């Protein structure tokens, strides 16, 4: 596990250094702040899906949950004139509910995770568009928008979710603090509590875990709830970051970035493997690749191609590493 994280960290540093050498502008404070901000936003979603992937499942609905949550938040704040904290509460409950629904459908109705969350992807996206009549809307007034009864409080929240804290001449984006807290919490949960152990165990061998007296259904539901909750938190962060939410586009394909980061960060889609640090670093790598392509002057049409190749090579390298570790363990004489 540790070697695994080391590999992705070396990749991060390598791309970072190469980009900085080719284009020193890469290192300027504004670019760094942006990079940290976007990496953090992506990492929140990626951590969420990591829980599900560790159980051997998948969640394709993350992008649509991000979209729906930011739409609902904006509606609550703008049209309903709701107290901002209540609005946040509603969106979090909404995402918990979505996760619970996924978990129940998967464990009780025995629908495959891919199908459940694929349908979720379609349904939540269209719900967001329907609720807004497909008009863009934001949690903050945009060019003298009407509504927003509690404007002052909303501005306070805007600072919390997409503000900057001055550290000397460097302005640290607040999402970085979110990912710091969330990743510590996730790491403690996965490595220090029995539930974290159960998730890894059932991801490796669900039947065997059940035979050991563990309520595997409940643990799987928990994983989907956490995944959607993290997607919901990401949705709130994205809404305040973007200011204007496009019901048809906001969050589109984000599930794929999240899954890519989880896989690149050491999660196996077969389940049972994953590390929080690896996933967070991998989310940063994905954002870094985007940034580097711009900085180095490669055609942006190649973005997806380069991203795809890096993920593929990363996962192949990881597989080799695992085989080497396994050989070493097997060679230990019993």
């Amino acid at each position, binding site marked *: 596990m540790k070697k695994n994280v080391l590999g992705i960290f070396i990749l991060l540093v390598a791309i970072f250094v190469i980009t900085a050498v080719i284009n020193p502008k890469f290192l300027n404070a504004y670019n760094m702040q942006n990079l940290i901000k976007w990496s953090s936003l992506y990492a929140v979603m990626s951590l969420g899906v990591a829980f599900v992937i560790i159980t051997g499942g998948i969640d394709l609905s993350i992008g649509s949950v991000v979209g729906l949550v930011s739409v609902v938040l904006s509606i609550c704040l703008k049209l309903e004139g709701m107290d901002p904290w209540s609005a946040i509460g509603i969106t979090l409950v909404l995402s918990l509910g979505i996760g619970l629904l996924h978990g129940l459908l998967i464990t009780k109705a025995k629908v495959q995770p891919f199908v459940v969350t694929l349908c979720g992807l379609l349904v939540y996206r269209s719900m967001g568009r329907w609720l807004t009549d497909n008009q863009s809307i934001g949690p903050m007034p945009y060019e003298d928008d009407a509504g927003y009864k509690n404007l002052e409080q909303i501005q306070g929240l805007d600072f919390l979710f997409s503000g900057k804290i001055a550290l000397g001449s460097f302005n640290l984006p607040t999402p970085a603090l979110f990912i710091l807290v969330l990743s510590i919490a996730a790491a403690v949960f996965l490595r*220090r*509590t*029995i*539930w974290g*152990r*159960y998730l*890894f*165990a059932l991801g*490796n*061998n669900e*039947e*065997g*875990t*059940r*035979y*050991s*007296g*563990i*309520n595997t259904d409940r643990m799987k539901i928990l994983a989907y709830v956490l995944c959607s909750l993290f997607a919901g938190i990401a949705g709130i962060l994205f809404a305040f970051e973007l200011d204007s939410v496009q019901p048809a586009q906001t969050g589109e394909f984000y599930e794929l970035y999240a899954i890519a980061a989880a896989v690149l960060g050491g999660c196996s889609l077969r389940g*049972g*493997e994953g590390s929080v640090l690896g996933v967070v670093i991998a989310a940063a790598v994905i954002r870094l690749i985007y940034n580097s392509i711009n900085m180095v002057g490669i055609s942006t049409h190649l973005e997806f191609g380069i991203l795809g190749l890096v993920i593929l090579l990363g996962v192949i390298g990881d597989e080799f590493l695992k085989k080497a570790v*396994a050989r070493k*363990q*097997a060679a*230990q*004489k*019993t």
Partner: protein
Amino acid sequence: MDETSSPLLEVSGLQKSFPGVLALRGVSLHLQKGEVLALIGENGAGKSTLMKILAGVQPADEGEFLVCGKKVSFRNVNDAMDEGIALIHQELNLCGNLDLAANVFLGREPTKAGLIDESEIRRQTEKFLSQVGLDLPVDTLAGSIPIGKQQLVEIAKALSCNARVLIMDEPTSSLSQKETETLFKVVKNLRSKGISVIYISHRLGEVKELADRVTVFRDGENAGELMQDQIDHDNMVKLMVGRELSEFYDRQVHRPGKPVISLKDLRCPSYPQHPLSLKVSEGEIVGVAGLVGAGRTELLQTIFGVTPALGGSLEISGEVKEIRTPRAAISEGIALAPEDRKQHGLVLPMSVRENSSLPSLQRDASRGWLNENAERAVTQNAVKSMKIKTPNFEQMARFLSGGNQQKIVLGKWLAMSPKLLLLDEPTRGIDVGAKREIYKLMEKLAGEGMAILFVSSEMEEVLGMADRAYVMHEGQISGELSRDQLSEKAIMNLATGNLVAA
């Protein structure tokens, strides 16, 4: 046998190791044309490994292969087929959704102008099916015929590849008495046509009836050979076990205490039409014998709450309990060491520590926080009391031998101090040394008052270990035998539905 003719098949010095276990330590074997050679030995003796090597499923690490005196080497199943060696698998490999003709010629379909030549396939299949005495339309779906007939189709398939040697691994383990008789007829018929058969079986009675010669394996080595006139039960057992039976199964007679579990007309989901009643008391070791597929595993799984009962009652220490999940069973003091320990008993990619502590994690945790000291203590205890051979606690369970894996499974349950221990094929795939240790452990636990209910397909194990045994046949308990009544014949009679007990 004619000693001067060059044998059809001859192997020598065969070695094969798997992580953590040396499966074959230089074994040899020879086979004449038209001979039925029985290969016997306890589980873990290396029979199946040898068969897989002979059939090209796995390569050997070392050793020499001669077919008709000519040196050969098998890299894959096709190489073995080219020399006419075919393996009839223990688990049948037919595609249930295809018809018999398609199955027999799967992967070798004759073509005409690039398309499958259906009429040729049908014609050929009919010929081969009649050779194994099967009178079925060739467009019957393979999945729709009983297992005994599927096996004959597999043999027909082997014959269609010009097989000279058929390797049959426990062919009768899931057959009824009648199907077994049919199979024997087919085997004898093939022998008369010059086809050789290597026959692996635990059923010594069958071996006696069928074999021209017996080769015995023990612990990955040749343990001896019996010519036709020497084949009898005692000789075979002596070679298999390596000592007199009484030494191997060191049993004392316990006086059973109060009943721990009692089933009254329990209905398992697998055979809901047959209510099952049995009881096991403190300090008692009770066996459940029967053929594969008789519903023994399903019975244990129902007691353990994996597949909850559909009706009837289950009493634990005199109180009626409803057990619908393994979790509920565990809280009633029941533990199960399952038959398929890789799938159900262990989380293979996890460490010895993580496996040993899995059931007790919650008990030892406070508010969900892992208690690492307790975890280490549980592991330490399991490794010590079970004599688990592992380089350290962090070794992945996958890399331990079958015996050590089974000890982890037992160790993790002992940490929960169960009242009733369910063991499903407790020594399958385990070497003789570990086997003895597991028997000793069973004996010790029973001595301490634990109730033990074990399922076993190994006749010797039931005869050696059980204070009492139930025999199952097609989902029902066809009989109960006290220690004095236990004999191979009595068990086989009941197991094959021959209700006239000996």
